[in-house]
């Protein structure tokens, strides 16, 4: 049976308004043939997880360039666990120092893409590593 299209969410948690990268990645995912849900700005972790469940996504990509990722990213992971949907893969991107990446990966994030990552590389990684949940 042919695998269904991957459903991918691109989310902007917290108050950070830097959305240039998130919007470019959402477009690249759409061009790559994924079903994309872009949450828009200023989403609380609760809103993101609620939408992720509603839209039945396979993956959430979190974008943060304003320094609040060490609270926001783990909070999303925590809420996914609380809601019994910890099989949704969580990726991250933005301004995230090396030391924080280590901690976030240990907390359960599958991958963090840092500045300078290229679109084809990101899309390729997702195609190879993220599968539809059902």
């Amino acid at each position, binding site marked *: 049976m042919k695998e269904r299209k991957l459903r991918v969410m*691109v989310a902007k948690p*917290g*108050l*950070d*308004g*830097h*959305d*240039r990268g*998130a*919007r*470019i990645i*959402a*477009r690249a995912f759409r061009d790559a043939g994924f079903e994309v849900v*872009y*949450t*828009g*700005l*200023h989403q*609380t972790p609760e809103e993101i997880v609620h939408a992720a469940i509603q839209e039945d996504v396979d993956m959430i990509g979190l974008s943060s360039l*304003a*320094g*609040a990722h*060490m*609270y*926001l990213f783990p*909070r999303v992971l925590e809420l996914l666990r609380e809601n019994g949907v910890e099989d949704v893969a969580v990726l991250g991107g933005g*301004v995230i*120092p090396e030391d924080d990446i280590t901690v976030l990966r240990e907390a359960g994030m599958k991958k963090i893409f*840092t*500045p*300078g990552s*290229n*679109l*084809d590389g990101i899309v390729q990684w997702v195609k190879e590593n993220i599968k539809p949940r059902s």
Partner: protein
Amino acid sequence: MSLTYNQKIMDEIKEKEKEWENDLNEAFSVSPERLERFITVSDKEIKKIYTPMDAKSQDFLRDIGFPGFYPFTRGVQSSMYRGRLWTMRMFAGLGSASDTNRRFHHLVEQGQTGLSTAFDMPTLMGYDSDSPRARGECGKCGVAIDTLKDMEDLFDGLPIEKITTSMTINPPAPFIWGMYVAMAEKRGISRSVIGGTIQNDMLKEFIAQKTFMCPPRPSLRVITDTVEFGTKEIPRWNTISISGYHIREAGSTAVQELAFTVADGIAYTQAAIERGLDVDDFAPRFSFFFNSHLDFFEEIAKFRAARRMWARIMKERFKAKNPRSWWLRFHTQTAGCSLTAQQPYNNVVRTALQALAAVVGGTQSLHTNSLDEVLSIPTEEAATIALRTQQIIAEESGAGNTIDPLGGSYFVEALTDQMEEEALEVIQKIDDLGGMLEAIEKNYPQKEIADSAYKYQRQIDEKVRTVVGVNKYVTEERMPVEILEIDEALEKAQVEKLNRVKSERNHRKVKECLETLGEACVSGKNVMSPIIEAAKEYATLQEMCDVFRSVFGQYRDPGIY
């Protein structure tokens, strides 16, 4: 109206150019040109060479002229840097008000000549440090300001009657400005003496920077209140910093940055005139803020075109008579989006080139980014190098010796003309849509920017565009750079401070002030005086912002990509 070149000379130049082109074609048939296309960072194609032919329809006095004289292509003041250098104004903000106060003192001691404040995300978005929305964000990308107490601590020991202060704040601009005025008056400094700028430019928020609170139309009404108030009460204050910086950071081209910024300026001017204000009263206190990006010459042409465009628009479209109404005075920041996380020391070079472009382009004030900007808030050391960059340009490079050094360059003059022409076409499109407010509601500038940003990224991915250290000259080796970290304990301390302030203030007076503010919002009375009164009573930022939200509504990002 005479032209600078005569026909006989033009014909001789054309002949010689043909000879040169033949020579070139021979050379390229042996070994082709180095690149397929020679483009600026905005994807504009640049010719092999520029000659007087490229400026043949220019009239020196009409189009270029002298600094301080219409149309100001060469600079807004007659003396420019021969009289006084640009203001070295380093954007700074981190952690608590005391942390930032320390950074302010350090920068002033190291020679900066103007203050510039970066606020944290909760402050920028109108939330207090104890709001659930502020969790994890307190002090992380700028200073946390909740009440007048924080404002007092922020400027402690700084001579604000002598030095001007810029504050990068948008939806909560009236409240932050109110706190600043209250702070000054408590120190016995009159509002007729304080000088500075509030960014206060909501149109570009909807287009690019995206700090949101109330929807576009009420936001414009509030901005007009601040313009009206500032014009009457705070004569040395720039009421708006009409910004292109963020539009460029969001991914626009140089022409789009120029056009959208000037179009925003047109919208603010129009709104103030409709309020019944005299253009010659408020326009002299409109200021601008541009990006200085990677392409050295394109940026210089952009700055020159901006001055000439604004002068012509103010004089011809808005019939301003006061020469100061025609002046486009601007602050510049070097392009944050051009810096790389890879090989961060390369960023010192990028910033230096961009700063030089801003100086050669005649900026009134300048912020230079730090090498670690891509990784975190700058360390003191990195910020100091950025300041030294300006000082080296000022004292060692000779760039400030003559006014408009690239005036008369066939290349720069041709590029200036081109930028003006292309930007005016975009402004015409916006006028056809009904003006900037309507254009924003139709998502026109937002979509243009998203398209430019996507195209730019694709060019980098396909290596059509080189980014040194990222897609060329890549090394595996990591260069150690110490990164500034904001202490997690700060948030708790800030909340405790906020609670203390709340417990010590007069609750009844705060309540009354907020009610008065609400009434002004509804009735259309100017909001600034009620805001200053509320600030003096230590009303919190969010308490005041919530009054706006309850009357004007909360805007949500439409999430278009």
